[in-house]
């Protein structure tokens, strides 16, 4: 089993005789810890901190989290607060409250999330976005270089984040999707926008939505006026696999595709939806073909997003150094 070894030079202190486990083994253990524990365990000792703050460790931790499916639901409240919540016994339970410390971004929208990084947009600002890791509370303001059109502000209809392993950073994507049944995607290997062959089940009278479900590309939808929906996922080999049919939708919703947004799939295989108008959260049990309304003690959330429990934050080392040397009032990095 090949393991990533940390460079010895980075961990000079780990040679001490008090350690009972080798650095390799310690790496394998602590990589399985959640972010909150890791942040706390930085003060166990200097060698522990050296491992935890290492960039390679953070990347491996992110991959491990993905593999373990360690996802959290991030909710944005109307009050401007964010919180990590979980659905337990069809009740919404707050695990951790979050705040965005950047001025003007307290009441922001969650545009998209990828691997534990969330892209936020303030309702008033059009050029500035905030990249945020709510697990570690790191954030960075970004200026979008493509929206400098004077005449009209064109907002992207969709937005995405993707990881580019070549430059070892996340790219912000703003694809414009038209209303025909064409799926376009951005190939990060060739840096080109390409068209994905339309799957056979997407008929002309049907509407489908996208989502990343359990690391797979997922399409869900059906006939425009339908009260039912089908969920399909794309398998590793690129073939579409039918996952389930969702029926018996709650009476407050009229049409499935218009009114319901798929959020994620729980460990027990329940599918969590959000109703668009009321922001209420529902859980669908596939075996019983039953929707359950998730009880929420507080006012309805504005928006819900899924977020990986990850230490990783895409701040290139070079930029971080530059920032330290000349602290500017608005430390914005445009890419």
């Amino acid at each position, binding site marked *: 089993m090949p393991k990533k070894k940390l460079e010895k030079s980075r961990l000079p202190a780990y040679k001490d005789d008090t350690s009972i486990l080798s650095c390799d*083994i310690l790496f394998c253990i602590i990589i399985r810890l*959640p972010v*909150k*524990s890791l942040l*706390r*365990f930085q*003060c166990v*000792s200097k060698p522990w901190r050296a491992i935890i703050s290492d960039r390679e460790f953070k990347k491996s931790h992110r991959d491990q989290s993905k593999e373990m499916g360690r996802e959290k639901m991030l909710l944005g409240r109307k009050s401007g607060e964010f919180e990590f919540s979980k659905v337990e016994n069809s009740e919404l339970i707050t695990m951790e409250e979050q705040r965005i410390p950047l001025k003007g971004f307290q009441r922001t929208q969650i545009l998209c999330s990828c691997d534990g990084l969330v892209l936020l947009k303030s309702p008033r600002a059009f050029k500035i976005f905030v990249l945020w890791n709510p697990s570690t509370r790191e954030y960075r303001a970004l200026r979008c270089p493509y929206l400098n059109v004077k005449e009209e502000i064109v907002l992207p209809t969709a937005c995405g984040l993707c990881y580019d392993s070549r430059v070892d950073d996340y790219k912000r994507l703003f694809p414009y999707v038209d209303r025909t049944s064409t799926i376009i995607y951005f190939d990060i290997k060739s840096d080109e926008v390409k068209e994905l062959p339309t799957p056979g089940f997407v008929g002309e009278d049907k509407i489908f939505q996208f989502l990343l479900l359990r690391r797979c590309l997922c399409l869900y939808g059906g006939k425009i006026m339908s009260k039912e929906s089908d969920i399909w996922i794309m398998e590793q080999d690129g073939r579409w696999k039918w996952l389930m049919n969702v029926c018996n939708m709650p009476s407050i919703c009229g049409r499935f595709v218009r009114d319901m947004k798929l959020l994620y799939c729980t460990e027990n295989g329940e599918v969590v939806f959000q109703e668009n108008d009321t922001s209420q959260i529902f859980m669908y049990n596939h075996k019983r073909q039953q929707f359950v309304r998730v009880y929420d003690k507080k006012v309805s959330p504005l928006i819900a997003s899924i977020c990986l429990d990850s230490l990783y934050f895409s701040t290139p080392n070079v930029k971080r150094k530059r920032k330290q040397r000349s602290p500017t009032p608005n430390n914005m990095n445009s890419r």
Partner: protein
Amino acid sequence: MASTTETKQKKMLILKSADNDEFEIEESVGVQSETIKNLVEDGFTFVPLPNVYTKALIKIIDYLKKHANKTDSNDEEIKTFDKDFVNTTFDDLFELVSAANYLHISCLMNMLCQTIADRIKDKSPEAVRKIFHINCDYTPEEEAKIRKANAQAFEGQFDESLD
């Protein structure tokens, strides 16, 4: 130990622990360890394990025997066995994880690392230090600085127990 009739039929290996105890096991059981498999492929039937002590080796052989007989029907039985296997002290787990790492038994390694991680995740840094026998090398000022920078990770109550 296996009976003599079985010994004749099946290929056997002898494992020697760091404290010089010898154990005879079937080759098919032993080769779940990558380290042993490599030695067997090179023609060895006597395997000295200078990094594995008898106490850990006995437990690991038990594990390998159980997992060598994995079928579809005894899934529950193996789960119970695994649960029992990791239900031990931290010091025992550390000894086992070192042995599993040396022997390259990846499924055991994963299970042990996950067990240790699950058992320490809600603990305080002080408890972790004691469990891992670590002497804190921070000055009180340095430690306070790190705590302050990660204040949210210190919200709430933590488990101070050492088991």
